[in-house]
């Protein structure tokens, strides 16, 4: 959605297709650095008016920063020159629409992106599945390494998109899952609706392989 501010035209996203995975990762980095501590502090406060006041301030701060981040308007400009009531009227419906869309994500096998056909494998694991052990192994190992390093889930999703989302009939290449590869970098530009579909695919795949291999389900439950 376009809007005018200080004689300039700005855009804020109204659908997940207008937000990239790279933007989501950058926002997460900013959030952890600047606001995660505040959130923890509020969570540890005793219930009461002080906590409610802190929660309100936190939410307004988050709203202003989210708006600044997605529109590109400097946070100082947002805080000094945009009425908070107008901001709520303008931005909250857009923000809500993004969350609602996220809830409705469903699995698609084929996507059109950057004028090319991209595909995900079928999440149903059976003797016809073409997925190789290497794809699965690389994904598991990458996630383990990122978890050990304390990296965010969004960075993990960038790796998983590089591994599982491929051009039509393209074979898996281990280099896709390396930080310096063109493919990995390209995934920063992936629209969030496709990125979240990959996450949905992985969740379906995980359910499928646990359903197919009962002893693995049992082991999982024992360990949990």
């Amino acid at each position: 959605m376009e809007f005018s501010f200080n004689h300039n035209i700005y855009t804020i996203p109204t659908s997940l297709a207008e937000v990239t995975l790279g933007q989501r990762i950058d926002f997460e980095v900013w959030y952890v650095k600047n606001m995660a501590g505040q959130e923890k502090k509020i969570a540890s406060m005793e219930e009461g008016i002080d906590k409610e006041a802190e929660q309100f301030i936190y939410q307004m701060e988050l709203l202003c920063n989210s708006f600044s981040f997605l529109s590109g308007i400097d946070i100082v400009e947002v805080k000094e020159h945009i009425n908070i009531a107008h901001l709520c009227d303008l931005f909250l419906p857009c923000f809500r629409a993004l969350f609602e869309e996220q809830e409705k994500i469903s699995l698609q096998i084929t996507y059109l992106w950057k004028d090319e056909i991209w595909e995900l494998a079928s999440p149903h694991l059976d003797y016809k599945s073409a997925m190789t052990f290497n794809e699965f192994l690389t994904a598991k190992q990458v996630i383990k390494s990122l978890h050990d390093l304390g990296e965010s889930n969004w960075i993990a999703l960038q790796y998983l998109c590089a591994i599982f989302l491929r051009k039509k009939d393209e074979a898996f290449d281990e280099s896709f899952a390396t930080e310096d590869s063109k493919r990995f970098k390209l995934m920063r530009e992936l629209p969030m609706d496709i990125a979240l579909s990959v996450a949905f695919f992985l969740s379906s795949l995980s359910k499928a392989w646990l359903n197919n291999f009962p002893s693995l389900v049992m082991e999982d439950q024992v360990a949990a």
Partner: protein
Amino acid sequence: MAKQFSLFGNGGSSGSIDLSKHFQKWGWISFLTYVTEKGIFDISGNGKTKLENTKAAKLYDVLVWADERSDYESAIAAYQDKLYKR
């Protein structure tokens, strides 16, 4: 790893070695090594190493094999435990 495959757990018998720390450190690399050493998915004469052949194997086939091995080794370990206790 140990969460998903019983063959990577602590083992069924009371005298077995606890490998959980090893699996925590090496994760799926350890599983890859195990499958490769067994040579189950090796194709001789195709110009690829054992490791390459294992990686190229179908995920479904590897998981079915691992699942069967898991059950088999648990049964053997349980039997040995029983013998040890007698």
